[in-house]
């Protein structure tokens, strides 16, 4: 796969693709997530609802065990688990790790999930496969996209993996619903 789309036509296609997906402000993704760090590993079913800058994640294990809801809007993170609500500052990545124990790129994930780099932060080592992003490095994270599928007018990732230091996450998205909930 090539690193930067070469021919102008390919480049235009990629720019259009990024514009189309950046404009997607409301969406829902349902699937599964495996998180792993030096100290812990979890897998859970995932329901991700995005509305503008507001992300709502519902995570739960088999039989509804250890279910957790995370609300994030870029500055604040609310984690609700087992009847306890924690409101955490996530204005900086360090704050995210200190408060959640996880080094999660909360601000970047809504973009990577859509198969595009996070804007206003430089992304390097972009690689493409059939004009879709297959790899990028951003903010020290290695992000790999191994599968895409068409959902309505949108071509969206269904398998991605991110890794930085001792933290890694695998996401499998079974169902995308791009656009505001009806």
């Amino acid at each position, binding site marked *: 796969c090539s690193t930067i789309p070469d021919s102008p036509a390919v480049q235009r296609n990629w720019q259009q693709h990024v514009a189309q997906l950046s404009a997607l402000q409301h969406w829902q993704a349902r699937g599964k997530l495996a998180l792993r760090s030096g100290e812990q590993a*979890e897998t859970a079913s995932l329901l991700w609802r995005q509305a503008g800058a507001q992300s709502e994640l519902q995570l739960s294990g*088999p039989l*509804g065990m250890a279910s957790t809801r995370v609300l994030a809007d870029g500055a604040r993170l609310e984690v609700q688990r087992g009847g306890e609500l924690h409101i955490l500052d996530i204005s900086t990545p360090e704050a995210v790790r200190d408060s959640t124990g996880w080094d999660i790129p909360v601000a970047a994930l809504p973009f990577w999930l859509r198969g595009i780099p996070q804007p206003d932060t430089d992304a390097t080592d972009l690689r493409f496969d059939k004009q879709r992003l297959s790899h990028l490095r951003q903010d020290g994270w290695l992000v790999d996209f191994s599968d895409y599928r068409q959902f309505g007018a949108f071509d969206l990732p269904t398998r991605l993996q991110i890794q930085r230091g001792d933290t890694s996450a695998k996401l499998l998205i079974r169902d995308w619903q791009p656009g505001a909930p009806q």
Partner: protein
Amino acid sequence: DATDDLLQHLAGFKSLTGQFSQQQFPEGGGEAIASEGQFKLLRPDYFAWEITAPDSQLVIATPEYLWQHDRDLETVTRRPIAGTGQTSPLQVLAGDESALREGYRVEEAGPGRFRLVPSGQDAAFRQLEVEFAGNILTSMEILDSLGQRVVVNFTRLVRDAPLNPGDFEFSPPAGADLFYYDE
């Protein structure tokens, strides 16, 4: 009382196997997420819960460990049972009488239906309802700590099928990401 009545229903079997279909209703509405699979239970400490569609996932509990194997994500985690602290609904049904009496307040919730409310604080779920037709377990409904509802219907149940601990042994497949909490 209701606890004795529930225990009487549960007393009838040493092992149980069967199939299930599950509907998970996210908190705040939205369409249910369906899955199905099979399970087996050998009282008091063994159970295996295998989702076969659409995901491929296996949870196995032995007296020592809780294994979770996600075939789609190729991950295996192993936790010492003592460390889990959270008893899953199935372990409640498989568990011994004292665990049930101490850990849960039991109420009748309809004909052959019981509601279990954990007495402890950090329980794995807010409420569990189980329903029997005669002494046959037919369904359970879990209200998790977020208000998500998981409804499980059981079918093709076989009581006291010949099971032994060996049926609950698990060895991780090659190539899976392993994470052992006690190592």
